[in-house]
Structure formats: structure tokens, C-alpha cells
């Protein structure tokens, strides 16, 4: 089917590192809705065909739906081919492929290299090295480093439009030499995304000997980052590489046509869409950003939109047991584990999880470690994102500073959490948001798919976003003050539906759930102490707001920022357990 035709049914496929999902969208009462989903384990590795996982997910979907999508024939290729006859459109997001070894070349660390790094880290690529103009002083030593790294992808960026081109010319010559020194099959894909005045020189020097693509400058001015055109091209190259090199991809990629992108790319697109859709200031004049994050099996993907700025980070999960001992990862996981367990056991669990990422936590100990790991992954993603996006209001250890609403979350550790309270607490502890927000659980893992399908069916994402496919976990109000533990820092008057208004005092250090049936409108009047900020624009500012109660009602987080855990194990675990209890877990 051509993409300009309107399909009434769309099958979305999501091939992740661990799980392959199939989501079936159809029209009900003139609106697109998610009708059914299915999933199975991704078929990767020796002797496996990606298509087997896809068929398994569709079979699971068929069992739940009445629609038959696959014809019962033995040959798997034919089975997938038949899909096209019963489904209007098929779209595919993927994150389960190998990451291309990438080298970045640019000018200054704080400018063009940061821009390039933002580009590389927004996609499933491995950044092997980044060279700046200072490295040019090392002469041909850089060449030797390149020869040892042998990158599959090379991104050359730098120079504002019309800016100094001299250092870039030197990089071009080094790249030319590099291409002359390696065999044809080892010549990397080269992307030039810098000063456009150098375009002809780059073409003249590199086109004949390298696999060159000229992209738009990703940093046309010092303050402007324009990544999307480059992302589109590179993302396409990544998925083409996966199709060429993964067993069984070609079986069904013909069926999806151009509707194939990586998960990170699609999530980025969806956040841009939501950010622009809801770009408005609230009654208090506060601008709110949007966050979407996915705690996937292969990586953590964080997409942020605020103040006209947008960006995405894909942080690969630990893929090597040696990494567990780096960057205090083990200590941090240990700190957030809410059961008495030794550091050795945590280390063993993490190592075995790296060897077998599909493991699910079977007992309480494993669950606590797994959920602690999720918190640390979130904190790590925020920190990495902040490192290349100066505008992102985050300080390691201190949590988010800006106002974000909604925060849309997904990933097996959240959607498979035994209670919604546990999922909520993972997000609150990991992100430590401030002000007023709502946490939305993408329980069917469809947000990236919507970003992709919107390309062909623009109305589908809008209508599905409004549906119950997404679960509102609850509105969260964070009160930040510096009062002694136990002292009241905010008074809340609550009026839910036709019930009588009541008042609650919230004490410093507590986490409180206001239990209101899901979906019910709630009117809140919030009266903070003079030195307490609740997100209405400053300390002591009170306000009134209406929210729709989520599955967990309304949550008031008065634990303080940053969250502080006692040093002593027993008290630390007691504190973590008390927070879980507050969330009904």
C-alpha cells in the first residue's frame, strides 16, 4: 500500500534486544485505537532468524485477537508475506541490531564535538573516540589511532556556517590518507555535517575514495543545534546495515517499505511532536517540558523536549561484566536495593544479567536489585544527557530542576513491575522530578511506534495518545523545602468528585498518596510554607490546580531533593521499604 493512502489497520512491529512486540491498530468509532498486542522473545544469535521472533509476536497477538494475520503455511517467509494482504500498513521500529563503531571528528570540545556527540548518542551507535582540533597537533598519531579503531562510521563536523574552515580541511586530509591506507571493504561511511562552505572541498577530496555523504551542518550557529536532518540519514543507514547483516531481516523488510527506523529515532520524533503539541505555559506562566524514557533490554532511551529545545540520548545497557565495577555503578545499585543483600550478591546478579539479559527477577531479592538497577540507569541517562545538552536542567545527585509534564515511561522493568507503585517509585527515585508533573506508563511500549506510524498516518498517534493505551499512574507534586524532618511543609485541600473537601498536612521527609479513584477530576489547593517550593514559580507560592486522578491517585513527594539515604544499611533499607509502603507496594 502506498503511504499516502489511509489504512484502517496498521500493524506495528518492535524488535527489541530481548522482546519482539506486535501491536495492532484499527479504527473503532471513527478513531484509531490500539486493539491488541502480542510479544515473544527476540530471536537473535546463533541459528536464529529475526523473523521467527516477529512471527511469534504476531502469533501471540492472534491468540488474543480474533483477526488472523498469518496464513498457516510452514514456510516462514511466505507466512510474513501474507501479512500484506490483511493488514493495511506495517511499520517496524528496531533496537536489537549491532551498534556501529563510530568516530567523531570536529573542532572544540564544548562546541562542535559536543554537537557531534549529541548526534551520535541520539542513535544506536558506539562512540569509539572523538577527536578535536587539539588532536590535530598530534599530527599523524591520530591516524594510527584510527587505524587501530577501524571505525565503521566517521562523522566530521564543526564550523558554523561561514566560519573558519582551516582545521576542518586538515581533518579532511587525514581522512583521505586514512581511506587510502585501509582496504576498500574497511573504508568507513563518512558523514560530513559541518561548515557548508567546505562542502566542495570535502567532496573533491573524499568522494572518490570514501563512502561519503554530505549532510546539513548540525551546528549552523554556535547556539543552534540542528540534528534532525543528519539523524534521518544516519538512522536510515543503521537500519539498512541491520537488514543487510542480521539473519532473517530481509524476510519482512520489503513488507514495511520505508516505515522502518530505530526506536531512539522514533521516540525522539514523538517527543518533538508532543512537545510542540502541548507547548503552552500553564496558568502560573511556567513552561513545561516533556520527557519520554524507555528502559529497554539493550539500552536506556531518554528523549527530552523543553523551551524549544529537543534531544535524545540512547545509553547502551551494560554489555560487559567489566563495566559493572566502573563509575560507581555497583555501589549505586547496592545503595538503592531495598532488601538486605550483600554487595557480592548484587555483583553476581548484575554479572549474570549481563550474560543473560532476558532474565526476569524470580524472587524478591532479584526484584529489588533489578528495580535498583533501573533507578541507577535513569540517573546515568540524565547525567549523560546533561553532559552534552547544556540547556537540560539536571545536576547529578540533585535530580531534575525544570518542570516536565508529562513524563512518559516504558520498559519491561516498569511495565512488568508487580505493582504500579513500584513502577512509580522507580521513576521518582531515578529522575527526582520537581514541581508538578504526571507520570504516564506506556504499558504496551508503543510510543516509538506512534512516532513512526505518524509518518504515514498522521492522525493515528494523536488519537491513540488520547486513548487508554497509556496509563496515567498519577499526578505528582514535589514539595522542596529545607525544614526539619517531620515538620509540616505544605497543607493540601482536596476536593475529589462529589466527595467532601478535606485537608491533609504533608510533613518534610514523607511520600504521600492521596487515594482518589482513577480518572476522577481532583481539585487541589496547595499552601506551602514560606520557604517551600511546590512548582508554582517559587518558594511559598500557593496555588490551586485541577488534575485527573491516576491509577495511584495523586502523589505528594516531600522527601526533599536530592533524595538522601541513610548510610547505615538497616536504616537505608527501612527508608526504602517505607517509601514502597507509601506507594502501596
Amino acid at each position, binding site marked *: 500500500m502506498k503511504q499516502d493512502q489511509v489504512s484502517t489497520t496498521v500493524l506495528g512491529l518492535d524488535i527489541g*534486544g530481548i522482546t519482539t512486540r506486535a501491536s495492532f491498530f484499527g479504527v473503532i468509532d471513527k478513531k484509531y485505537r490500539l486493539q491488541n498486542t502480542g510479544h*515473544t*522473545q*527476540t*530471536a*537473535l*544469535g*546463533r*541459528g*536464529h532468524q529475526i523473523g*521467527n*521472533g516477529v512471527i*511469534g509476536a504476531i502469533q501471540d497477538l492472534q491468540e488474543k485477537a480474533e483477526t488472523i494475520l498469518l496464513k498457516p503455511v510452514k514456510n516462514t517467509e511466505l507466512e510474513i508475506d501474507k501479512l500484506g494482504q490483511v493488514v493495511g500498513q506495517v511499520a517496524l521500529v528496531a533496537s536489537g541490531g*549491532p551498534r556501529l563503531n563510530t568516530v567523531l571528528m570536529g573542532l572544540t570540545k564544548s562546541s562542535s564535538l559536543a554537537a557531534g556527540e549529541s548526534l551520535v548518542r541520539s542513535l544506536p551507535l558506539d562512540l569509539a573516540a572523538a577527536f578535536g582540533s587539539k588532536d590535530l597537533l598530534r599530527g*599523524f598519531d591520530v*591516524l*594510527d589511532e584510527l*587505524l*587501530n579503531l*577501524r571505525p565503521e562510521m566517521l562523522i566530521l563536523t564543526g564550523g558554523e556556517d561561514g566560519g573558519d574552515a582551516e582545521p576542518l580541511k586538515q581533518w579532511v*586530509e587525514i581522512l*583521505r*590518507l586514512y581511506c*587510502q*591506507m*585501509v*582496504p576498500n*571493504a*574497511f573504508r568507513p561511511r563518512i558523514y560530513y555535517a559541518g561548515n557548508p562552505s567546505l562542502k566542495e572541498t570535502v567532496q573533491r577530496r573524499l568522494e572518490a575514495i570514501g563512502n561519503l555523504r554530505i549532510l546539513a551542518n548540525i551546528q549552523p550557529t554556535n547556539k543552534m543545534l540542528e540534528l534532525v536532518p543528519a539523524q534521518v540519514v544516519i538512522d536510515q543507514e543503521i537500519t539498512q546495515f541491520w537488514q543487510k*547483516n*542480521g539473519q532473517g531481516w530481509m524476510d519482512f523488510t520489503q513488507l514495511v517499505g520505508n516505515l522502518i527506523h530505530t526506536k531512539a529515532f522514533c521516540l525522539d520524533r514523538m517527543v518533538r511532536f508532543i512537545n510542540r503539541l502541548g507547548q503552552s505555559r500553564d496558568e502560573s506562566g511556567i513552561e513545561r517540558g516533556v520527557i519520554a524514557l524507555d528502559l529497554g533490554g539493550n539500552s536506556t532511551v531518554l528523549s527530552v523536549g523543553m523551551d524549544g529545545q529537543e534531544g535524545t540520548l540512547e545509553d547502551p545497557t551494560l*554489555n*560487559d*561484566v*567489566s563495566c*559493572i*565495577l566502573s563509575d560507581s555503578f555497583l555501589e549505586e545499585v547496592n545503595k538503592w536495593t531495598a532488601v538486605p543483600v550483600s554487595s*557480592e550478591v548484587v*555483583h*553476581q546478579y548484575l*554479572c*549474570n544479567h549481563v*550474560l*543473560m539479559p*532476558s*532474565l*526476569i*527477577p*524470580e*524472587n*524478591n531479592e*532479584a*526484584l529489588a536489585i533489578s528495580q535498583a538497577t533501573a533507578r541507577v540507569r535513569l540517573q546515568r541517562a540524565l547525567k549523560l544527557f546533561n553532559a552534552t545538552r547544556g540547556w537540560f536542567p539536571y545536576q547529578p545527585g540533585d535530580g531534575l530542576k525544570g518542570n516536565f509534564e508529562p513524563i512518559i515511561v516504558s520498559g519491561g522493568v516498569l511495565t*512488568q*513491575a*508487580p*505493582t504500579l507503585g513500584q513502577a512509580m517509585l522507580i521513576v521518582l527515585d531515578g529522575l527526582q522530578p520537581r514541581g508538578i508533573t504526571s507520570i504516564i506508563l506506556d504499558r504496551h511500549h508503543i510510543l516509538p511506534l506512534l512516532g513512526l506510524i505518524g509518518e504515514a498516518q498522521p492522525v493515528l498517534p494523536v488519537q491513540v495518545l488520547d486513548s487508554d493505551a497509556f496509563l496515567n499512574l498519577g499526578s505528582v507534586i514535589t514539595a522542596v523545602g529545607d525544614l526539619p524532618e517531620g515538620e509540616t511543609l505544605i497543607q493540601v485541600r482536596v476536593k475529589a468528585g462529589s466527595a467532601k473537601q478535606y485537608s491533609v498536612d504533608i510533613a518534610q521527609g514523607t511520600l504521600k498518596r492521596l487515594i482518589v479513584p482513577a480518572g476522577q477530576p481532583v481539585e487541589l489547593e496547595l499552601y506551602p510554607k514560606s520557604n517551600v517550593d511546590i512548582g508554582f514559580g517559587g518558594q511559598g507560592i500557593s496555588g490551586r490546580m485541577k488534575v485527573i486522578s491516576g491509577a495511584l491517585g495523586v502523589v505528594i513527594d516531600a522527601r526533599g531533593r536530592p533524595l538522601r539515604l541513610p548510610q547505615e544499611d538497616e536504616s537505608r533499607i527501612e527508608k526504602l521499604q517505607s517509601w514502597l509502603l507509601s506507594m502501596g507496594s
Partner: protein
Amino acid sequence: MKSNDLITAERVDIKRSRQLPFRGEVLVKFGENVHPEDMVARTSLGSRVRVLDIAKGLGVEPSEVESCLVRQVGEQLEAGDVLAQFEGAITRVVRMPTVGTFIAYQDGKAFLSTDTISISVKAGMIGRVEEVTPGFGVVISTKGSLFQGVWGNERVGSGVLTVLPLEIDQEPFEAVENLVKKGQVVASHSCQSRQSLTSFVQKEVTGLILGSMNPDLIPEVMRLTFPVILLQGFGVVNLDPIRLKLLQDRDGSVVCINASMKDTFSETPPEVIIPQVEGNLEDIPDINELAVTQCVQINSGEYFGKIGTVEALPEEMETFQSDIVDRSAVVKIMDTGDKVIVPQRNLRVINGI
């Protein structure tokens, strides 16, 4: 449901391809016997680039240099070879200052690579060269026992196998002191202490096959020069009875370990090969799905590391102790006969048993 599988087999046909990423030289011949550390193919890339200002050397304009070049780009040259020559009243020449390759020429300057980066492929196993792809590599084959593991320290090696007669949970250092000889490959239940690891190093073993290991030892193990392979995982897990028996049966045989860790997309996990010419060959079934009667290793919970047989794959979802709901398998534990319910996703099929 897709299975995670590892092969354990007493005697199978084993073929492994060892190829260079780009053209080079194959160092072994068809039919030749190879050992794990033998280099089977090699290639190189030029490195250490130097620039030679030919225009300056000849005393001419850069634009005139091209006509003075007497060598072509790509040529390998010896120290003293003439690179460019200007015929005038007095003939002037520019010579190669060192051995190298003339890789490029631009604006009166020659770019030379004066060293090489070597890229090689090792055999990684004992076997016979069965196929040669000229310029790229070989296929090596053998018949024998095959044990695939879950982790390795990226080394290859071989030696005579000795299986330590340890009780369950017993640290190996004392047995190493008394029983192990230099050059042996040692199989043991587990290695939990630095003392044990040091004892292996001091005895100059050439390989370690372990059921499990303390993950705190990873940095040290990565620095070892001999291969270490884990068959079951990290933690305190004893070698399961099947693999222990198979290893004991081959005590005294020459064994090779390829402890190279590859990612999810690779063909083979780290593995132990014990060549054995005589005996009946087994077929390794190509298992894609978890199924009843398969032999599996449990990778979580109370029974972590145990092996057993899948007795049932219930249709209905199971709520586990963590309250997580997922698909389950009923597994009969081999050494105790206990029947346990475990998540399907936490099982590894021990293929071939």
C-alpha cells in the same frame, strides 16, 4: 519461545571458520594440523605516517614534483630507494629515509607509512585445516567433545586436562598445590578467592574450566595470559553432574579453550574442545524453541546453576515469588529429582544432552 542454548556434547563434528576481515596471507595449508595458539592467517595495515617534502628536497616548485616522481603510490620501498629525481646540471634525488610504503602524494609532499599494524587470526582449537579461502582464512575441523560456556576472558590456549577431585563448595587452592602440574588445563567447580586464583597462576596452568567464579576476580582474570571459561555463571555454583562427568571421563586428554567473548550476534560462545578421533558421532539438534524433555540450566533463584529436564511448559502464566507474572517451565532437577517451577526466560538449553 526462543531458547538460549549452549552445546554440551561427548563427541561431535566441530567446524570453525577463522577469517581475516580483509585480504592478507593464509599461513597454513589444506590438511595441516593446527593448535589453538597457531596463527592461521595474517594481514597488516600501514601505520606511522611520515611526510617527505620532495619539493624542498629537489629544490623545485611543488607543481613540478609530480613529473619528478620515479615511484608510484602503493609501492613498498626500502631505505635509500630513490623516490623522486630532478635531472638538471646537477641531478638531485630524494630517497626513502626508512623502509615503508608510498601511500599518497600531494602538493609536493609524499606520505609514507613507515610501520605496520598487524592483524592476525588464531586457530583457537586443535584440528585440521579442512578448507582454505585464499587470502582470508580457513575452516578448521575436528571431532571431539564440545562444552560451550557463558563467559571467557578472551584468551586461547591448550594443555592436558586435569579435573580436581573437589567436594562441593571446596576452594581449589590446596588441591592445586598438591595435584596440578605446570602446563595443565584445570577443571574445577568454582574459584571464589584470590588465593585460589594465585595458586593456579603460580602453578603455571595453561587454562581454567570453571563452573562459576566470584565476579570480584574479573579484573585479575582479564589480565591472565591463559584462558578462563565459566560454564555456568558468576557466583558459587558447582559444575553440574553431566558436565563434571564428561570432563572426568576425558581427564588426561589434550583440551583446548577458546575463551573469546562475542556479542549476541556472533556465531559461537566461549568453548572448550577436547579432540577425540575414535567413537560414535552425535547429532546436535538445532533447537530454536524451548520444549519438554530438553536438558536445561536454571539461571536464577534457589536453583541457580542446577540442571534438569523440562517436564512441562504450562499454558497459563505463573506468578513467581517476586509477584512477577510470566511464562513458566516445570523442571525436574537432575541431582535431587525435585520438581521446580522457574521462569522460561531464565533457562538455558544445554543442547546435545
